[in-house]
């Protein structure tokens, strides 16, 4: 029996929503929590499962259209749990497909409306062209955020969310208003993968800190060697789109 403090991380739909290396985000949270001195209880939630209790951090990824069809109804079913946790300041990271479905709706090319859970005040409209390539954004909280985007949906933010970053290079939420991603309380949602957290340890440690402070009151970080992350960021920021 260990006397280490434990953090429970829930992966949302890892079977159907994992397309662009989303495992990287989960792995980074798991390892950094361990390196900071915590035990990690890693759970997976797939359609039809019982929604678990006592969750400290939630991470969700992107999917293909077919994956989104599979999870959509289930997501609507667990939406009350997710909204309650978000309003209770549980940190969450939602990438791409789940970013869209955490919003109000996704309107497809032929006008069909896919209902989201409305946790985020955003709406997404199918775009004619895919927005793909290396992307850099700037955030007041996290500094430069570096990643890769690959999406056809164009997302527009409402009044109750803030953008995660301002686009420096790339398309961002919709290719028009220079916003990228969305924040609501401790929920961070974004189109950026690459994967996001390995090259942006500031965001990883933010999510970790929120989870730990919420559960245990204080967080004393360890120094983690982020040399490779720094070098990888520097190279990525100079690569062609």
């Amino acid at each position, binding site marked *: 029996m260990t006397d280490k403090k434990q953090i429970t991380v829930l992966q949302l739909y890892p079977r159907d929503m994992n*397309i662009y*290396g989303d495992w*990287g985000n989960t*792995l980074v949270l798991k390892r950094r929590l361990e390196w900071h001195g915590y035990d990690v209880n890693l759970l997976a939630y797939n359609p039809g499962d019982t929604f678990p209790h006592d969750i400290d951090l939630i991470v969700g990824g992107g999917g*293909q259209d077919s994956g989104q069809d599979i999870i959509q109804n289930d997501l609507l079913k667990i939406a009350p749990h997710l909204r309650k946790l978000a309003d209770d300041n549980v940190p969450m990271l939602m990438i791409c497909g789940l970013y869209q479905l955490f919003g109000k709706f996704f309107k497809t090319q032929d006008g069909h409306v896919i209902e989201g859970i409305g946790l985020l005040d955003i709406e997404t409209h199918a775009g004619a062209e895919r927005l*793909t390539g290396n992307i850099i954004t700037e955030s007041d909280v996290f500094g430069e955020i570096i990643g890769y985007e690959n999406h056809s949906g164009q997302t527009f933010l409402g009044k109750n969310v803030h953008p995660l970053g301002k686009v420096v290079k790339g398309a961002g939420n919709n290719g028009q208003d220079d916003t990228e991603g969305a924040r609501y309380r401790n929920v961070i949602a974004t189109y950026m993968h*690459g994967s996001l957290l390995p*090259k942006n340890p500031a965001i990883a440690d933010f999510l970790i800190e929120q989870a730990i402070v919420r559960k245990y009151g204080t967080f004393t970080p360890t120094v983690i060697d982020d040399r490779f992350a720094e070098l990888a960021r520097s*190279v990525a920021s100079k690569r062609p789109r």
Partner: protein
Amino acid sequence: MSKPYVTLLGKAVRTIARIRGGGSALPGLFVEKIDPDFIRRTLAELPHGTVVISGTNGKTTTTKMVVALLESQGLKVFTNRTGSNFTRGVAAALLGEVDNKGKLDADIAVLELDEAHAVHFVKTVPPHYSLLLNVMRDQLDRFGEIDTTAKMLSQIANATTGTVVLNREDPRVAAIAKSLSADKVHYFGLSSELAHLFPSDDDMRSTTTAPKQLQRPDAGVILNKLKDNQAEFLVEGKPLTTSLKLHGIYNIYNAAAALALARCVLPAEHDKEKLVTALSEVTPAFGRGETLTVNGQPFELVLVKNPSGFRLSLASFKPKDYATMIAVNDNYADGRDMSWLWDVEFESLRAGGVAAVTGMRAYDMALRLQYDEIEMSLVEPDLSSALRQFIAASDGPKRVYCTYTAMLALRRELAKITDVEQIS
């Protein structure tokens, strides 16, 4: 422009490109521009028509095997063996083979084609046969989604005038049969004993095994058993055992694919003994588990392009006694997005560590290994410098996992110190 002129001009460009040391695609691009009908017209004259081989992983090795199998039966085969699998690569290969009147001395063409290019190619040149290997997440920066790739393969199948050979074990490939008349479809497959070694893309992050199809169609060729390089196939239910020079489970499964296709092309009374001999003698395609000799020791080049390929390679090649280098570039041909590295698990390298990490995205790769808690002795983005240090650091056998353009660059560097087969 008349045909002989196009051919002569194209050949001239090809010669100049070779003298310059340039790639294989430029002369093909040239011919494509001035005579778009060149490929169709030339291939239309072949008595046995054209075979198209496509899918995410294993195209080059499978194509090489199909060529060897057909040649063992006396057929003259035209192929694009450079692995330049875009349409212009085919045009370039044709230029090298046709006589000055533009005639191709061959019975059949066996072409590996990139999925997206194959879709356009088959509109111009409907193949007599197609062989569709698998659909895995790869180049999503080009294709967007895996299901998009599956649709491309379906278009190839539907443009095929004769037989379509499908991988029974890949759910996205097997599903293509629904759009085809049943007499057109043949399958290759795995025994249930081996099936678990080939997770489909849907099993990538699944903790539970996806429910297998209850009723699987019969497959003409099945990879039944495998022990080291000794494989047993079931051909129409009859066992066929042979040793192979290919390494890696996935390469040997490709042999089942090649056999299945060859059996469709060949007459029923073909020489089975020669067929097996040919199969046993096929060596890996360049950079696909190719073994060079450096300082008297084996030096293996293993091409990795996507998570499933990298995972299967790590499962196939045991790291014990080998020093490992990983070379990751992010040129257009490699894919710009590094996300795929996070869908590969590297724990199998933990015991021995990784001797060197290199390539344009060396730091992304190092970051990936850091999170799997794997020791690295050297992280150096410059390929030639890393290669020199990697070779100098130990005396034993070596293995390099490399992305496409990193592989080409490493072969150029290695050619300075050892024998490397030139790929024109």
